[in-house]
């Protein structure tokens, strides 16, 4: 028998809904993160959000608000680098580690519940309130609509920046606009897996999807479906085993990525022996 008791608890229902919101957005945004080579920037935005989330505790704001404000400002800064961002690993690395340091200072100054650090770092999907759900829902809708508005330009500019510029697209403004959407996706994803593991949800499904697909639509749809699937299975496994959701999600991404890589190695061998 399938154990359906998982749906009997409010906090489980909220967790599944919040996880789905985050997965839909992470899958869609992640696809563009991959084709724009922005994986490291996405990872960095998660860590930068740590300072925002812990700083918010100090001034009695909700962590998600503080994280949102911090990541959006960081996103604007990174976006302004334009095409140079792929060569800016050092500066991004220094800023992200400073933000982690800042976060540890804020937590030191904040004398409340010490478990907050773990919650911010590794997520607390089971603690999502109805109020948080509302915020997450509207953030998701807003980002998806914004992404819809610029999707065509963004795809063109991501694949062919030189041509896009020649056709009159401002790469810097487009980059800033997309980075803000990415900041929102990262903020939502970190509610599920925490700032440390943002990478797994924003990059993982999309990184797997681009290896299985050769078209834009099949790629982005597979990325979103995988993200949702991974989050649902992750929550269920966590419910059954009582191990953390973050663990299961990152383990699932790892396992599927591993299988995908094996497929590619296999394919490579076959195509080599053809020659």
């Amino acid at each position, binding site marked *: 028998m399938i154990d359906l008791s998982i749906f009997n608890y409010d906090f489980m229902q909220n967790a599944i809904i919040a996880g789905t919101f985050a997965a839909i957005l992470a899958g869609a945004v992640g696809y563009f993160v*991959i*084709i724009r*080579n922005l994986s490291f920037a996405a990872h960095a935005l998660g860590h930068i959000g740590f300072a925002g989330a812990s700083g918010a505790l100090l001034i009695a704001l909700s962590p998600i608000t503080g994280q949102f404000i911090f990541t959006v400002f960081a996103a604007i800064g990174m976006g302004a680098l334009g*095409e140079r961002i*792929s060569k800016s690993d050092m500066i991004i690395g220094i800023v992200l580690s400073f933000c982690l340091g800042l976060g540890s200072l804020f937590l030191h100054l904040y004398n409340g519940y010490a478990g907050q650090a773990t919650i911010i770092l590794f997520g607390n999907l089971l603690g999502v309130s109805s109020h948080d759900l509302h915020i997450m829902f509207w953030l998701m809708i807003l980002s998806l609509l914004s992404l*819809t*508005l*610029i*999707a*065509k*330009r963004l*795809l*063109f*500019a*991501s*694949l*062919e*920046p*030189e*041509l*896009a*510029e*020649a*056709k*009159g*697209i401002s790469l810097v403004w487009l980059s800033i606009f997309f980075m803000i959407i990415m900041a929102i996706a990262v903020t939502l994803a970190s509610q599920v897996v925490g700032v440390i593991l943002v990478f797994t949800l924003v990059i993982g499904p999309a990184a797997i999807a*681009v*290896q299985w*697909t*050769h*078209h*834009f*639509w099949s*790629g982005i749809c597979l990325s979103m479906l995988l993200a949702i699937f991974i989050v649902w299975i992750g929550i269920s496994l966590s419910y059954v085993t009582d191990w953390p959701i973050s663990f299961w999600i990152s383990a699932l991404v790892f396992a599927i990525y591993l299988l995908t890589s094996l497929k590619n190695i296999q394919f490579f061998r076959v195509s080599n022996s053809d020659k």
Partner: protein
Amino acid sequence: MIQSENNVIITENLSIGFNHHPIVSNINLTIHKGEFIGILGPNGSGKSTFFKALLGFIKPLSGKILILGSTPQHGHSHIGYMPQMRSQMSIANLTARSILEASCKGSCYGLPLPSKSKNLEIEKVLELVKAIDYADRSFRQLSGGERQRIYLAQALLDSPEILLLDEPLSNLDPNIQEIFINLLADIQNNLNVTILFTAHDPNPLLRVMNRVLFFARGKAVIGSVNEIITSATLSSLYETKIEVIHLNQRLYVIGDGQNILGEVAHHHD
């Protein structure tokens, strides 16, 4: 300036460069509809800079440009451009056709939805460059020559009147270069499009180009191959002794004992 339908590019006392520092000065030329112009010159002589000025990426330091009757501006839909350098090959493992779909009307807003007119347009350019056979293969698995054809197809989207092709022959084997040039000549006959084509070596272009635009030492000269690629013209342009040698229907431009045009291409990656 003489404006007419037939004069697609006109420059007058044009000086181009970066940060107030001119790379080429005093360019005066008129390019007619349907011409094939080979743009030659050593590295850094201003070939790509000239394209940047025509595309509106940089403003003239002085003088004027008229392209299709107006000053250059970003996003001119009747100019097809094939850049020399691609900053990176995307990680997305897309087919050649998917890349063309993304490029077709790529500066519009909204979702990149497929449409009948778009498919027809893509089919048309794929036929022009004779790339139907491998359009649905992964772009990453294509050979250098096949990729150049897809890039050419990309430049031909939205029916351009002018094609700016920046070093399309670099890194191609000689026989592939010839196939590419023949293809381009066919396309030009079909579409009566004006082609500006930069290259290091004049030889692959000898049969197809109508005129040569030669950049060197901050100057530009334009004329037929027989007028420009001569010992006298190039010596006065380079301000040093240059010899043009005809050998087996090929041209060798020798200065300081070295072939100053053909050889460079192989070092240029």
